[in-house]
């Protein structure tokens, strides 16, 4: 184990350095694997199951991108990141993209130099309290002890909310969701606050989910989306349009079950044809094969399917589409046209 690790890695690093340099897209193709940053474990969004296979909504996005670029939805290396390590991991090139329910904010975009390619989940920060506490509004939380996951925007939102309402609280900063859960269940804090989706996901794992309620207040806007490094526009386009392809597919009624038929030959709807590569050369423009979007959709289904399968109402997490319905259904999910 001694020097060989060092040496081996040095050679690999040297080889890597020789191949790299061009752009993330070429890197990924050369490597044959997509390095995708995800959370260390949030059921429904990204969590390894008992066999170590990653599953979840964010994981679905990673798999779609891998399928679009490499044609293989399993060619993904999932890199678990904490709130602390995620941005460095992306900035230093350890991962190619970050799909870790990360909020799109001004300073992350402008100051930290990342590009958010879109929004895959419109979220907001909420509060969860035990039912027997008898609290019905966040404004009644004066003097409460609040568990927060540290290193996220929720920490700042929380401070702002309580200051704006001129009530006091005591924060308990926690590193991971699992520990926050433990603290909350043990009663070491009265309230657990994080993104409403995360709260629902966490509550789903409780022994007695009905004993806990989510308060009606949503105190912040949390548009969550995948992000890449600034300045690599080609790669940025790939990730952005893969996400858009998933959204458009739902809008156009393309699902993982009917895609084989629809993609086999050009159909009557020109946009579907362009999306699935049976017409036009959108794939070529991206530097990808013509069936890139088809692969991406087949990886886990379209946006709606991913949603239903991982976090939708039929799952234990049970999130309604709400803001995340298609724009045609009164939601905010809207993809620019494929043209």
């Amino acid at each position: 184990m001694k020097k060989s690790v060092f040496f081996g890695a040095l050679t690999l690093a040297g080889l890597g350095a020789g191949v790299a340099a061009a752009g993330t897209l070429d890197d990924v193709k050369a490597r044959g694997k997509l390095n995708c940053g995800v959370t260390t474990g949030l059921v429904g969004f990204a969590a390894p199951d008992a066999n170590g296979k990653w599953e979840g909504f964010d994981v679905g996005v990673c798999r779609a991108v891998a399928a679009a670029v490499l044609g293989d939805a399993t060619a993904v290396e999932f890199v678990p990141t904490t709130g602390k390590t995620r941005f460095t991991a992306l900035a230093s090139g350890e991962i190619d993209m970050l799909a870790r329910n990360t909020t799109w904010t001004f300073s992350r975009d402008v100051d930290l130099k990342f590009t958010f390619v879109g929004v895959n989940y419109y979220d907001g920060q909420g509060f969860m309290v035990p039912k027997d506490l008898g609290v019905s509004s966040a404004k009644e939380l004066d003097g409460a002890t609040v568990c927060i996951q540290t290193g996220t925007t929720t920490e700042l939102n929380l401070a702002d909310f309580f200051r704006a309402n001129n009530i006091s609280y005591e924060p308990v900063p926690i590193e991971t969701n699992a520990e926050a859960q433990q603290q909350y269940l043990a009663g070491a804090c009265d309230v657990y606050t994080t993104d409403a989706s995360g709260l629902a996901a966490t509550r789903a794992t409780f022994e007695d989910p009905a004993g806990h309620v989510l308060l009606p207040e949503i105190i912040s806007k949390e548009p969550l989306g995948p992000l890449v490094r600034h300045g690599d526009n080609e790669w940025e386009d790939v990730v952005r349009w893969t996400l858009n392809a998933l959204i458009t597919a739902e809008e156009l009624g393309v699902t993982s079950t009917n895609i084989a038929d629809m993609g086999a030959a050009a159909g009557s709807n020109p946009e579907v044809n362009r999306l699935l590569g049976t017409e036009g050369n959108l794939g070529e423009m991206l530097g990808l094969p013509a069936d890139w979007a088809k692969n991406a959709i087949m990886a886990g289904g379209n946006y709606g399917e991913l949603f239903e399968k991982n976090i939708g109402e039929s799952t234990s997490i049970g999130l309604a589409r709400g803001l995340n319905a298609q724009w045609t259904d009164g939601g905010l999910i809207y993809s620019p046209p494929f043209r």
Partner: protein
Amino acid sequence: MSDTHAETVAFVQDTTIPPAPPPAAETGIVKWLRENLFATPVNGLLTIAALYLIYLVLNVSLPWIFGGLWTTTSLAECREILQGKSAACFSVLTERWNQLLYGFKYPAEEYWRPNVAFVLLFVAAAPVLFFDLPRKLLIFTGLYPFIAYWLIWGGSALIPIVALLGILGGGLVYKQFVKTSFAAGFFGAIVTAFVIWIVAGMLIPENASENAMLPAVPSRDLGGFMLNMMLGVTCVSLSLPIGIALALGRQSDMPLIKWICVIFIEFIRGVPLITLLFVASVMLAYFFPPDSTVDLFLRVVIMITMFSSAYIAEVIRGGLAALPKGQYEGADSLGLDYAQAMQLIILPQALKISIPGIVNVAVGLFKDTTLVSVISMFDLVGMIRGPILASTEWNGVYWELLGFAALLFFVVCYGISQYSQWLERRLATDHR
């Protein structure tokens, strides 16, 4: 002298009395109890208090352990069976056994590889730990790192072979040139090794790892207790030579080298390991060439090695300082140059004195490998705090998991410290 007295004596003992057994209070268990447990009233009270304490602990823990369940599939099931009784739910250990030991991503069909590497570790370590074994076994010890690397990471066998060749080549050059001058040998060896590495590194085909005999496992997939063991063994064995070099450098009369070593050692010893791990996880990437990535495992190994080598250097410096000055002067008077004096006279003695200290550093380092869980690596503690406790089935099983982790570490660390005490006793008899 009158004999009246003799007549007044009614009885004269004319045979020896057979030795009577000592009074009951002075023998066997009673004596032991009286001397060791109830010597004074205060002592007796202490004993009773201690017994009560033991009773309290056992009263809670024994039923908990022996009533434990081993076969359920989730905590909820455990609770159902126990019906509110207090007992352990050890099924989490059986259910997640592989995850605890190997992390959650190491391919299950390859578990035999780390197992073999683990067994071979004992073979490799034996000749270092026990001097009585034949010295020829050391050859295997020398080969072990390369074998273990190949076993655990898999991929092309060429990489460890080339690494080995480089070191062998360097060694040969050193042997050749060291007769003329140590410096020539030293630098010659380094240059040779690098030349071999670079030249051979270019010859290894890029896709060498693809269809290798052992499928390659990326180091990100390592986890569980295996990760702790690997970090511990790698970093201790790497930091030993670096520590010796630093200790010698600190004693050197060349001011520049001395100050480099002093600053390095004091800096590393002055900051907590966790900040160095932060450096590995969030800072170090900025210091490598752009567009290259060095994986987290390697970055962590670099930082932990730096950390432990500074501590080992201080231990060895203590050993060097403990040697009587006569040894240095004796070496000089024999006309040995610096390298020879160190190699033949000073270091063998200094290292012998420092062995207990080095073992202490090694145990401390092994315990500190749990800190990598803070930078989102899934070692044993990381697995417990992350994926296992977060899962729906096992959310809330703390004592069994933490107790298991504590037990594993205790067994290893206690074993090493017992070895160190054995060694100390042995070396002590050597001196007298």
